[in-house]
């Protein structure tokens, strides 16, 4: 009896699985699988990526698609966990038989899926993870980065900081790969550009730290000229809040990557501190070009909110995909990868190129200061300085060296 029940149970289980597998797949549309974290704090970025992507895909499809085929995409939530991301990616490749993989915001998931993409020879376009290892040390012909990476931030920010008069710095940040990579990138490049800078000390906090006041007060105690804050994503908002509450921004100038980004400033409303130096890759109000305006309007019309950098990434990723298939002339992973490498397209932020040497998209960086704006519910960036993409890219030799290791 018991044996029977066990066997029946197994059979039911397998039948259940098989049923989900009986999807008939139409040969027609090009199928793209997106693995990303749609739960928890990161979803504020990933939803923008997905919405931007969808907007562009709909537009492409309305014009008749690519190579006469429509583009469809399916999403999977990895809940910011590597094991879930990895098994979702496998499911997309093996069961859904997607032609391409797109995702994700979690660097560890991106690296794990990148390794899978290499084995399965499926092109993988990383949309939001900023790990320099993706196209650097762990790069391969099938992985593409559609976002800046920590090296680029470091180089770009250092170029801007070197022009400022500060000498004694303090470094603080999220105690995980991203925080350390940003800090290390900025500091090593700053040291090169301006050898007399001094590091007074560092503080690191755990990711998701709820209250930054203790750290800020201990930084103030050391009296640095300026502070480099390397906190990512969810940490930016509470840090700026604590900075405002303690008057940190009035006492010590500090630089923070993504501080001026929409995703950071919008939730803070009028509560954000003024005068914070921050870099970002995109503002919906800058660059003030017709292309950008058109995109911002289109996005706002579709979703009722302003586009953030994530929305632009989603948008141009879809565009890159379409253009690369057109260039390749057929839907084939290898041809696609070759076509995308070195491809240049037009985007809301000007011409964008995927570098052939490491499959990294070349992005300009904008550095600005936060300021209250009369007609806006939240602070915006002013005094924007553009750091062209070419200046921030790691050299081909550096990439080669990193990959040899």
């Amino acid at each position, binding site marked *: 009896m*018991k044996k029977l029940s066990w066997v029946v149970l197994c059979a039911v289980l397998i039948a259940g699985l098989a049923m989900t597998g009986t999807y008939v797949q139409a040969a027609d549309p090009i199928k793209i699988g997106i693995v990303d974290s749609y739960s928890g704090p990161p979803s504020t970025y990933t939803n923008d990526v997905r919405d931007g992507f969808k907007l562009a895909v709909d537009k492409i499809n309305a014009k008749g698609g690519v190579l006469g085929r429509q583009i469809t995409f399916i999403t999977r939530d990895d809940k910011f966990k590597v094991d*879930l991301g990895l098994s979702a990616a496998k499911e997309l490749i093996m069961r859904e038989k997607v032609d391409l993989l797109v995702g994700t915001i979690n660097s560890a998931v991106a690296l*794990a899926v990148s390794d899978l993409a290499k084995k399965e020879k499926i092109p993988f376009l990383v949309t939001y993870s900023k790990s320099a290892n993706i196209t650097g040390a762990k790069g391969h012909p099938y992985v593409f980065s559609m976002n800046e990476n920590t090296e680029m931030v470091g180089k770009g920010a250092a170029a801007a900081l070197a022009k400022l008069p500060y000498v004694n710095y303090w470094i603080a940040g999220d105690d995980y790969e991203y925080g350390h990579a940003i800090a290390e990138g900025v500091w090593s490049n700053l040291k090169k550009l301006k050898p007399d800078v001094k590091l007074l000390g560092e503080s690191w906090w755990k990711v998701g730290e709820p209250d930054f006041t203790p750290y800020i007060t201990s930084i103030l105690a050391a009296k640095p000229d300026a502070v480099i804050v390397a906190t990512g994503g969810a940490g930016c908002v509470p840090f700026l809040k604590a900075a405002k509450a303690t008057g940190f921004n009035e006492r010590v100038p500090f630089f923070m990557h993504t501080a001026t980004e929409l995703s950071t400033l919008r939730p803070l409303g009028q509560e954000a501190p003024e005068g914070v130096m921050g870099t970002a890759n995109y503002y919906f109000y800058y660059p003030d070009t017709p292309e950008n305006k058109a995109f911002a309007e289109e996005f706002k019309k579709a979703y009722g909110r302003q586009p953030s950098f994530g929305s632009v990434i989603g948008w141009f990723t879809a565009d890159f995909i379409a253009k690369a298939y057109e260039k390749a002339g057929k839907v084939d992973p290898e041809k696609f990868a070759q076509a995308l490498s070195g491809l240049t397209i037009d985007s809301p932020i000007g011409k964008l190129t995927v570098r052939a040497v490491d499959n990294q998209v070349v992005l300009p960086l904008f550095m600005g200061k936060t300021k209250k704006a009369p007609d806006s519910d939240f602070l915006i960036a002013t005094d924007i300085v553009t750091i062209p993409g070419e200046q921030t890219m790691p050299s081909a030799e550096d990439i080669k060296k990193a990959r040899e290791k």
Partner: protein
Amino acid sequence: MSDNSTHWKWIAAALGSIVLFFCLPFVLSRFYIYFAALILVTGLLATSLNMVLGFGGMYQFHHAVFYGIGAYTLALTITKTNLPPIVGYLLGPVVASVLAVLMGLVCVRLSKLYFGMLQLSLGSLVWALVFRWYSFTGGDDGIHGIPLPSIVSSITGSYYVTAIVTGLALLVMFMIINSPFGRIFQAIRDNPERSEGIGVNVTRHQLVGQAIAGFFAGVAGVLFVTVEGSVFPDLLFWTLSLEILIMCLLGGWFTFLGPMLGAAIMVTLRTVVGVYTEYWTLVLAIVLMFLIFFLPQGVLGYIIETVRPHPARGQREER
């Protein structure tokens, strides 16, 4: 699990499923082979937890640490040393077991919730170490693309290795449960004071239990690397520990194969429901609530009770 005939029935059922699992790759597509391997690994992990949870009555709140350490040991042996991978495969479970004993030495003096929370803190220290030691463990990015021996590099290969090792591990665990040691262990669960009274060294038995559970968690850890080719600090995080605890309770923590079933249900739910909606956790939550109300013994516990209304039920209720 009392008389001899039950033993044989269980062993026959196990053999039947071994044959079934052997045949799977011939009928299933690549994804489902991988999927089956994933269920086996997770199930083995949950079963190893249940060795001390269900059969030892110990509140093992941070079992994932041993799983993660097993996985990391293999990954680091392959990537950082020139030793053959088989050394890593052997070392993984052993290191996990040693860690389990070390942590056990500190924890076993405490009981129930206190034991669990102390283990949780100690385990979190280990997690913090792995998470922070960038140069050695790769920090929070983890280690990916671990070059595995050729026999397990294909999906079918890794499936067979996983299935065989899992089968053997289950067999050994089953034998341990039914050995004199296992019986004393269960007696300690049911009444530690009385066991102490009749001259059983409770602490030592519990330590041995920890060693065994840690060992098999380590086995599951190296199998995870075999299946996925990656390690990352999530493997040692307390949320995973909570999840496998849930698997045990869901499947039935007083049955031997319950945790395996619980793992299968959880992994299937998140994969199958995850295809349709990102809110699969909502579905899981509702399923769990229904189970608690209607199947308090866990799924397998319920099946066993319905199929065989034996005296065993009365004994259970007494506890």
